[in-house]
């Protein structure tokens, strides 16, 4: 049997090749767009401005603020979605009631959620977190409800026969079983969280955060800065996806890789 080797590095290595290739493919497309349109900045100029942009502490503080809003909002969305899914799985009446809220929030356009939340919280910091939470919660709920409904009843039976108890049952049987549903929902929720936070920061006339700085640069037609913020945004989203979510996913599902090898 293989001993546990450096699974995290292998996961990153595997992802990195293709991800870098995909990013590299964007450069000629960008250059073509620059040559044929008015508002696209010269990739070379943007590349030259990048080191100074990244060296500016203000850049990182704004990234940190947006990242914090996304992390807290997503955390709240995941928690609310998990609790709602557990309740819906246990009780038919609760399922009927909660499904109304889930479907309503799922179908409401993100921009409208953002405007409403910011109006309710009068542009307060909690409004940004609330927007992310309310938009991501139904994705988590739907995914987890599907996972819980498909849980293997025979494994449940085994757990009951061997007296696993509720904690071991949830930790060692139920959670690993629904883990694919959790990751799938989390990935969707994460992607949506980034989209909606930018909208919220722009609509909410925030003074800090990625959306605020992007909006400011756009308003004054500082196109190089617009592109720099876009680049940072892409890098951040890709880092969380490939450097965090997928690495965790690979660790959780390492038993599949080993079995296939």
């Amino acid at each position, binding site marked *: *049997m293989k001993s546990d080797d450096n699974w995290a590095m292998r996961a990153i290595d595997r992802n990195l090749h293709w991800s870098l290739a995909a990013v590299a493919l964007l450069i000629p497309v960008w250059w073509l767009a620059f040559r044929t349109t008015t508002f696209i900045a010269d990739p070379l100029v943007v590349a030259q401005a990048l080191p100074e942009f990244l060296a500016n502490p203000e850049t990182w503080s704004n990234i940190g603020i947006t990242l914090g809003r996304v992390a807290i909002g997503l955390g709240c969305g995941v928690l609310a979605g998990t609790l709602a899914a557990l309740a819906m799985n246990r009780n038919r009446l609760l399922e009927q009631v909660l499904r109304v809220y889930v479907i309503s929030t799922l179908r409401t356009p993100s921009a409208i959620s953002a405007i409403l939340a910011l109006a309710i919280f009068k542009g307060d910091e909690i409004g940004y977190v609330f927007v992310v939470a309310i938009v991501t919660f139904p994705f988590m709920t739907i995914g987890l409800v599907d996972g819980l409904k498909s849980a293997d009843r*025979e*494994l449940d*039976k*085994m757990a*009951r*026969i*061997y*007296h*696993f*108890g509720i904690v*071991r049952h949830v930790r*060692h*049987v139920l959670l*690993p079983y629904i883990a694919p549903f959790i990751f799938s929902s989390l990935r969707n929720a994460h992607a949506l969280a980034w989209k909606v936070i930018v909208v919220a920061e722009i609509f909410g006339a925030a003074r800090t955060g990625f959306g605020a700085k992007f909006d400011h640069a756009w308003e004054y037609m500082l196109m190089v800065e617009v592109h720099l913020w876009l680049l940072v945004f892409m890098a951040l989203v890709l880092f969380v996806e490939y450097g965090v979510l997928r690495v965790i996913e690979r660790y959780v*599902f390492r*038993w*599949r890789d*080993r*079995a296939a090898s």
Partner: protein
Amino acid sequence: MTVTNQSVLKVAGMGVSYGGVQAISRFDFEVKQGEFVAVLGPSGCGKSSMLNVISGLLEPTRGEVTVNGRPLYGEGRQDPKLGYVFQNHRLLPWRTVKQNLELALASSDVPRERWDRNIDEMLRTLHISQFKDAWPLQLSGGQRQRVSIARAILVEPSYILMDEPLSTLDEVTARSLREELSAISRRTGTTIMFVTHSIREAVYLADRIIILTRGPSNVFEDYSVPIEKPRDYDDPRIGEVERDIINRVKGVWGMKRTERTEDH
């Protein structure tokens, strides 16, 4: 190890109905300490319901089930300490062989300091020591079922229920596992209740065979296998007993009755 007179499992007047349809009409039987009892019955005769009842998962519509003299349902009930070998291994694919065994042990009364030694010994007995750190998906069907058997024995249960555990395996693997099961049951003295469709398998393994009628089932016959242990699967006497049982059940299994009773 030998069979003692101490009753481990006693089923008296047990009946099970679902939505007005009777699955089990009436079961009465007893399993003694160290006994290997096979249960034979045609498809749909209520074997699964019976296993659910005596594993503590399904309260019977009527009758009593006691384990070591204490009721399994109702007042003064106790959860049975049992091992279970499923038709499909039911190992957790995200835990290694050792982790699967440890999880079952963690919920048992077996002290932690004995786990490692017991696991090593059991895996050696079942010839799967080399797979201790393997994931279940890396094992063959027979190896997984061996792990499942190891799990059932390691928790030191009052009795083990086996639900057609060899029916999905190829004949060569099944044959080797039958021999190992027979040897383990003799050596450890574990009380085993083994449900099977194979009359020959039942005759080879069991001290006693409980033969059921078609559903809604009764116990048709409590048949003592008249061959001393250890047995040889190719022993002509096993074939004779097999034929004898076939002749007895032919008429009963050929009939089909339906009865309706009160709701479960």
